[in-house]
């Protein structure tokens, strides 16, 4: 079989070879502790500053000291949310959305048990928010708004810049989980009212185990981890130097390639989507196709189930992911698909193709060829399907007793 094709870049990405190369010395000769005074540490300290500036450039922050290195996107999210609550003990409400990543959603659900009120903004069938609903919720009781910039499953973008302005006018802190956006869309945080923003190294061709919390200067803050003076005392713990250097390098590459993400990668994504939809009936794009990340196509294949699709794709050497219940590890169907009110016979068959600048035209052509027979093979097994189309009135023809 030819080389496997990786179309699961919203899950994680290949570490850019340039990033690997930049990291290597920091596993060997450059082992010093950046906090040390001597030359071993000093060199590493300078390299960290360089990485911080590379990240600063990618996100368009005003100061390099607004970049705090963390261990992952989840840590950045938790730090931001818990800090906002800590600095405003009298504000007991949080505003977020129903389609957030579990890194935010699970924490919010946990905070509800501790007595906080969480407002979950709903989405419509295309995964869009109602800004009026949001504006009405802003008040002196709200400690923080946390809204993702792009949805990881559908790629749908939220108007976080506009929402941050509204929060700012209402005197409410604003955080955004931007792990899917960083490196895919241009960002200039200094021109926004966003107070805190999370990003994750491994989503933009840096290694796993490193993330960033952007913290606007003068934003009131309380650290999650206290200890040493690393990251100016805002995130204690000896720095993951090699990974931070890798992230810096990856950020520089991402910035240099951002145009390509929005031209070449977008074109391949569109080709893939059109190619599949032209051949496969009863399939549709979920989310808001007109306003989404350039690399993501989430296609719902009706009347079949996602894990089965992925297993057959995997056999054909194609990697993607699904919103089906059975692929999540928890058996919970995708909360994003449910929130958009996608019928369950389609939600279970949703497959997310997420590209990167490393994908090629030939790969996309191979995928376009491979998908239709996989879908028809599974539809032949489906109780909702008969011959070349769904059975008449599928919901009535097959209405099993659920237990």
């Amino acid at each position, binding site marked *: 079989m030819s080389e496997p094709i990786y179309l699961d870049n919203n899950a994680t990405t290949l570490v850019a070879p340039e990033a690997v190369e930049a990291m290597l010395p920091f596993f060997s000769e450059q082992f010093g502790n950046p906090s040390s005074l001597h030359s071993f540490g000093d060199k590493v300290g300078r390299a960290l500053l360089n990485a911080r500036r590379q990240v600063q450039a990618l996100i368009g922050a005003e100061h390099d000291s607004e970049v705090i290195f963390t261990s992952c996107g989840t840590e950045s999210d938790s730090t931001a949310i818990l800090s906002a609550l800590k600095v405003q003990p009298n504000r007991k409400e949080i505003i977020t959305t129903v389609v957030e990543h579990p890194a935010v959603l699970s924490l919010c659900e946990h905070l509800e048990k501790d007595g906080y009120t969480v407002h979950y903004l709903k989405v419509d069938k295309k995964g869009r928010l109602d800004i009026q609903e949001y504006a009405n919720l802003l008040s002196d009781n709200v400690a923080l708004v946390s809204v993702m910039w792009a949805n990881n499953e559908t790629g749908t973008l939220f108007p976080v810049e506009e929402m941050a302005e509204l929060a700012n006018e209402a005197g409410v802190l604003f955080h955004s989980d931007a792990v899917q956006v960083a490196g895919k869309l241009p960002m200039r945080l200094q021109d926004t009212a966003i107070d805190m923003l999370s990003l994750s190294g491994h989503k933009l061709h840096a290694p796993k185990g490193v993330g960033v919390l952007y913290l606007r200067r003068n934003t009131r803050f309380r650290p999650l981890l206290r200890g040493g003076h690393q990251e100016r005392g805002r995130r204690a713990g000896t720095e993951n130097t090699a990974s931070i250097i890798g992230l810096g390098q990856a950020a520089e590459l991402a910035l240099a390639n951002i145009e390509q993400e929005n031209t070449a990668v977008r074109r391949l994504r569109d080709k893939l989507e059109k190619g599949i939809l032209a051949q496969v009936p009863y399939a549709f794009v979920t989310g808001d196709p007109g306003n989404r990340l350039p690399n993501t196509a989430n296609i719902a294949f009706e009347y079949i*189930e996602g894990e089965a699709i992925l297993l057959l794709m995997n056999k054909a050497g194609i990697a993607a992911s699904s919103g089906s219940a059975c692929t999540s590890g928890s058996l919970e169907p995708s909360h994003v698909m449910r929130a958009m009110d996608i019928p369950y016979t389609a939600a279970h068959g949703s497959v997310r193709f997420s590209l990167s600048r490393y994908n090629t035209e030939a790969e996309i052509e191979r995928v376009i060829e491979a998908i239709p027979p996989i879908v028809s093979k599974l539809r032949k*097994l489906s*109780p909702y399907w008969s011959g070349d189309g769904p059975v008449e009135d599928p919901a009535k023809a*097959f209405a099993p007793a659920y*237990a």
Partner: protein
Amino acid sequence: MWDYSEKVQEHFFNPRNAGAVEEANAVGDVGSLSCGDALRLTLKVDPETETILEAGFQTFGCGSAIASSSALTEIIKGKKLDEALVVSNQDIADYLDGLPPEKMHCSVMGREALQAAVANYRGEEWKDDHEEGALICKCFAVDAVMIEDVVRANGLRTVEEVTHYTKAGGGCSACHEGIEEILTTVLTEQGEAFNASAKAAPPKKTKLTNLQRIRRIETVLESLRPQLQADHGDVELVDVEGNTVYVNMTGACSGCQMAGMTLNGIQQRLVEEMGEFIKVVPASAMQKMAAAG
């Protein structure tokens, strides 16, 4: 990804008896709430002998749902209805060389489809008798509904007690937060508060004679037996030497990947019941030690 056996993969990639049976005279449509999978089983039954001549499945579901459906049809073909009805979900899982704990419900769905199809053939109405909840304990595949029912029925108050009654939480212990949440909910309903430092009934400390001690160990093993037998396994006491208890795991327990975990569970229970430290060792280790000695 899931850790599917070769057999599961094989039945998924090359399903047997896919599609509806023509001129079927028994149809069973069932679905699993826990994951949204659904299955239609169609049978052609010989009215004279009540033998299943043909079986076909149509499944909307994941890899293990399709494999379980395929396995089910293979198992029941040629069987008489009454023989087929004793096929358990464990039989389907065994046929596939096991299913991941999260996926056992796929085999349950298979068994239910069979029951529904037979009821349909006999002109009866099939009613499902079990409810499935979110999986809490992955080591022993115990779901929330089961834990909640057992907590209510037995007035349980601690995680330890839940482990004694259901096995849940007796393995890696990662689900203890989930069990505490269930206890908190149920106890709150009953007007009580969950107390994490409450102790399960403390073990009595009395000096036993050797004979009393061994009898007591046997009693504890006896009490664990139904749980093991439910998984087609069993345990027998071989010898007791000081703090070491030698046992034989038999039936499905022998050679089971979970045997180590089960031994730990037995050990934990013995330690608690006997109020002393006890080490549970497979009897095979005793022979090895004797050979080495």
